[in-house]
């Protein structure tokens, strides 16, 4: 087993274990901070798929934006929530069993579909031109953004502005008259 594979499986298991802990943790603050670990190891896995720019963007957007927002919303909305959450700890409810069954079924379905699809031998993957380690992907992404994917780029820009206005409108203080 080469060093690349070793590192890849290390980060993969780190991703899955920390994601499981995020889901199972009763303390919400801890689970939000564990979300950091998941995002970082996921970004490391993007690097193994030769997408370094995506990895950096993921870290910047999630750690810089999403996590701060989540912590902010949590601080503004908890008060009695934290104590309430810790009291429920340990109880195993029917919804958990049902959720576990649905997720296990979904996982089985997805894994069997992936193994049935035999993705490694698809023609476009076998014959297509793969990105090599020496390629400058940032250069490529810059060119693609302004040529082939200009329309999706503009649509995303407009969507981002709509989301900005919508979020600002939703979270404004209502005027009492």
């Amino acid at each position, binding site marked *: 087993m080469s060093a690349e594979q070793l590192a890849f499986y290390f980060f993969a298991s780190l991703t899955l274990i920390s994601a499981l802990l995020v889901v199972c943790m009763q303390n919400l603050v801890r689970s939000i901070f564990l979300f950091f670990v998941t995002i970082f190891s996921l970004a490391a896995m993007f690097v193994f798929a030769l997408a370094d720019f995506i990895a950096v963007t993921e870290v910047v957007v999630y750690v810089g934006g999403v996590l701060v*927002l989540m912590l902010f919303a949590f601080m503004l909305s908890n008060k009695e929530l934290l104590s309430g959450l810790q009291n429920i700890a340990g109880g195993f409810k029917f919804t958990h069993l049902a959720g576990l069954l649905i997720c296990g079924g979904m996982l089985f379905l997805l894994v069997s579909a992936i193994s049935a699809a035999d993705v490694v031998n698809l023609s476009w993957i076998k014959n297509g031109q793969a990105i090599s380690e020496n390629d400058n992907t940032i250069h*490529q992404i810059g060119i693609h953004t302004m040529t082939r994917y200009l329309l999706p780029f503009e649509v995303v820009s407009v969507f981002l502005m709509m989301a900005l206005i919508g979020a600002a409108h939703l979270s404004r203080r209502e005027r009492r008259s």
Partner: protein
Amino acid sequence: MIPLSHFMIISAALFCIGLFAVLTKRNAIQILIGIEFMINAAILNFVAAGRFDRVAGGGQMFALFAIVLAAAGVAVALAIILNVYKHFRTINPDKIDTLKN
């Protein structure tokens, strides 16, 4: 070089963890985290398949767009959660069961 199917199996597992969080959690923020896991599983698939698409670069470009959409979605969802908290004094989705007021 890691085979594509390993990426896909890991992203399938991450998707199922996110689905479990969405189905069972009783806190809107944790449900949001579950949705983020599901979106990130999709992004991992995009990126892993995009490695074999050097000419068009579709995988990486749409992974970027998906990250942007996820961030925008989180911003709006958290604004909604704060509003819900202001109305109901709770963010447990089981207890938010009225449409009036």
